[in-house]
C-alpha cells in the first residue's frame, strides 16, 4: 500500500488536559505530528507519554482541549471510522489462548468489515501483505503464545499493519525485548514509514534508539513538551539535562550519524581506577 501525499492525515492536539479520573497528568499541551514520518516520544517515567499517545488514539478522552484528525474533532467521529485511519498498539497486549498468527492478524481487519462481508479480497490481501512484510510467513499457522517475545511483537505489529491505517501509534513497542529484537522492530517500522508513507508515532524508552530511527523527537517531562524537532535539535547535553535530569556527552554515532547520548557519572562519584 502506497499512500499518496494528499491522503497524508494531519494529527494535532490543542491545549490538551489529560487525567485518569485523578490528578492531571498532562495540562495545556499542544502537539503537531508530522505526517509521513517516524516520530518518537521520549521522556522520563511518568511524564505522560503513554497518556498522550492514548489521547491521540482516542483511547483516552481529554478532560479539556481537542484532538484533530484531518481537521475534525476526534471525539465527534464514529470510532470505526477513526479505526480506518489511526491504528494503535497499546503496551503489553495479551493474546488470547489458542490463537494462531494468521487469526490474530486477521482481526486487524475489523474496521473494514461489514456484517456479511467478513473476508473480502481487500481483507485477504492486506493480511497477506502484513504477514509477509513482518516476516511471519513460516509462522502463520503457529500459536501466538508459543512464539518468542520478538516474534509476538511482530504479530501485533502485523495486526496493526493489516488495519491499513495511514497513521500508526505504538506504545513502547520495544520494551521487554532484547537488543536484537528491538533493532528488528525499529528497522521494520522505519522501512514501513519510508516505503509506504505511513505516519508512525511511537513511545520509546531508549533515547539513542529513538534518535537513530525517528525523523522527529518529542521530549516530555512532567506532562509538558520540553523540546521537539529533528534528532540533532533535541538530543543535546543541555536538553538531556533539562528533560532527564542527567549529565551527558553527545557525540556523533559512528555508524548512523545520528546523535548518541552518553550518560556521565554523577558529580562527586568515586573514581575506581
Amino acid at each position, binding site marked *: 500500500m502506497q499512500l499518496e501525499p494528499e491522503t497524508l492525515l494531519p494529527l494535532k492536539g490543542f491545549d490538551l488536559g489529560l487525567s485518569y479520573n485523578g490528578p492531571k497528568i498532562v495540562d495545556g499541551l499542544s502537539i503537531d505530528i508530522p505526517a509521513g514520518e517516524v516520530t518518537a516520544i521520549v521522556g522520563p517515567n511518568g511524564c505522560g507519554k503513554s497518556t498522550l499517545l*492514548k489521547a491521540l*488514539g*482516542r*483511547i483516552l478522552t481529554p478532560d479539556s482541549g481537542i484532538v484533530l484528525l484531518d481537521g475534525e474533532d476526534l471525539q465527534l467521529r464514529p*470510532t*470505526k*471510522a*477513526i*479505526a*480506518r485511519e*489511526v*491504528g*494503535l*498498539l*497499546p503496551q503489553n*497486549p*495479551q*493474546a*488470547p489462548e*489458542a*490463537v*494462531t498468527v494468521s*487469526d*490474530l492478524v*486477521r*482481526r*486487524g481487519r*475489523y*474496521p473494514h*468489515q*461489514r*456484517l*456479511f*462481508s*467478513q*473476508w*473480502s*479480497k481487500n*481483507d*485477504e490481501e492486506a493480511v497477506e501483505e502484513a504477514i509477509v512484510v513482518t516476516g511471519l510467513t513460516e509462522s502463520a*499457522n503457529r500459536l501466538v503464545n508459543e512464539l518468542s517475545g520478538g516474534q509476538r511483537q511482530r504479530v501485533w505489529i502485523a495486526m496493526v499493519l493489516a*488495519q491499513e491505517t495511514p497513521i500508526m501509534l505504538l506504545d513502547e513497542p520495544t520494551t521487554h525485548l532484547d537488543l536484537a529484537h528491538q533493532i528488528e522492530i525499529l528497522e521494520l517500522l522505519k522501512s514501513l514509514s519510508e516505503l509506504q508513507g505511513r505516519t508512525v508515532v511511537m513511545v520509546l524508552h531508549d533515547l539513542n534508539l529513538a534518535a537513530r530511527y525517528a525523523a522527529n523527537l518529542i521530549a516530555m517531562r512532567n506532562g509538558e513538551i520540553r523540546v521537539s524537532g529533528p534528532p540533532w535539535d533535541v538530543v543535546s547535553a543541555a536538553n538531556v539535562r533539562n528533560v532527564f535530569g542527567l549529565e551527558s556527552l553527545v557525540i556523533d554515532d559512528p555508524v548512523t550519524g545520528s546523535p548518541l547520548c552518553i550518560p556521565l557519572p554523577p558529580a562527586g562519584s568515586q573514581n575506581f581506577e
Partner: protein
Amino acid sequence: MRCDTVSFSAVVTPVIPTLGVVIAAVLFTAALLMFSERLPLRSITFRLGSISGLVQTKVMCLGAGTALITAVLIGVGLMVGDYPVPASRALGTALWDRSGEYDFVINHLRFPRLVVAVLSGMCLAASGFIFQSLINNPLVSPDIIGINSGAAVCAVAILAIGGNVSYVPWAAFAGAVLTAGLVYVLSWKRGVEATRIVLVGIGINALLGSVITFIIVRYPIEQVVAAARWQAGTLFGSSWDDVRILAIGLSVLLPLALVFTVRLRTLQLGDEVAVALGSSVEPDRLALLIVGSLLAALATSVIGPIGFVALIVPQAARMLVGTISGGALLFTSLFGGFFLLGADLVAQRLFAPVMLPAGIITAAMGGPYFLFLLARYNSAT
C-alpha cells in the same frame, strides 16, 4: 398378534444392550473428535458478490460429525425405552406415519423430548460459549449472573404454593432475565468488569438461594418435592409446545449470537486494542451479555436449571476447536445438543425403570470432567 410382537420385542431387547448402544455412540463420537484433531488447519474462502466469509475445514468437519451423531442418537432414542420400538417403525412413525400403534409413544413421549434435549442443549452451550469468551475464564457459566437462581425462585414459588403449573416457564424466564439484569446493574461501575460480575453474582445467588430455602422450609413437603424436582432440571413431560418455544427462540438468538461473534473476537484482545480497532466496548459487551442471558434463560425456563452443560461443553469444544469464531459457536452449540441428548438418554435408561432427572447425570459427569481437566492441565504445566 400385536401383543405377541410387542412382548417378543421386549424380551429380545433388554436394557443392557440399549444402554450399550448409547454408550457406544458416545465413545464413537469421542473417537471421531479425537481423530479430527489430526485434521490439517485449512480454511475455505467463499465469496459471492459482496458476501464473503472464511470457514475452517476442521470446524466444519467437527460440526458435521456432531450433527450426524446427534441424528443417530435421536434414532436410538426413538427406539429405546420401556416399550422398545423396532427401528423400521420408529423412524416411520416419527416422520410420516402419524397413526399406528407406536404413535403415542413416539410422537407424544419420545420425539418431542429428544428434540427438546437437543434444542435446549444448543441454547445452553451457546450461552456458555458467550460467557466464557466474554469473561475470559474457563470456570464461568451463565449461572454466575444469576439465571438459574432467578428462574428457580419464581418456579419454586409457584410450585410450592400449588399454583398453575403452566405459568412456571414464563415466570421462570422472567425471573431469570430480571435477575441477570439486576446483577448487571449492580456490577456496573463505569463499565462492566469480569471480576465484579462474578462477585455480585455470588451475592445475588446466595440471596435468592436463601429465599428459595425459605420457601422450601415453609410449605408442605408434597408440594415442595415438586419444586425440588423442577430445580434438578428434567426433560420429563416435554411437549411440542416446548419445542416450538425453543425453536423460535433459538432461531432468533443464535443468528444474533453469530453476528456478535465478530465483536467477541475483538473484545477478546483486551479493552484498549478493541477500542483501537473501532469497537464500542461497553455496548458490545452488553449486547453479548443480553444474548447469552436470553439463551440460558430460554433453556432454563423450559427444562429447569440443568447445570454443567453451559460450563463443560464450551470448554470441551474449545479444546477441539481452539479459537473463537462463528463456526466455533455453531459447533459448540451442536455439541451441547448432543451432550444433553446423551445425558438425558443415559438418565432415562441407567436405572430403568426409575427415571432420573437429566440434571443429575450432568452433575455426575461434572465430577469426572473436572478431574480430567485438572489432570490435563497439571500435566501440561
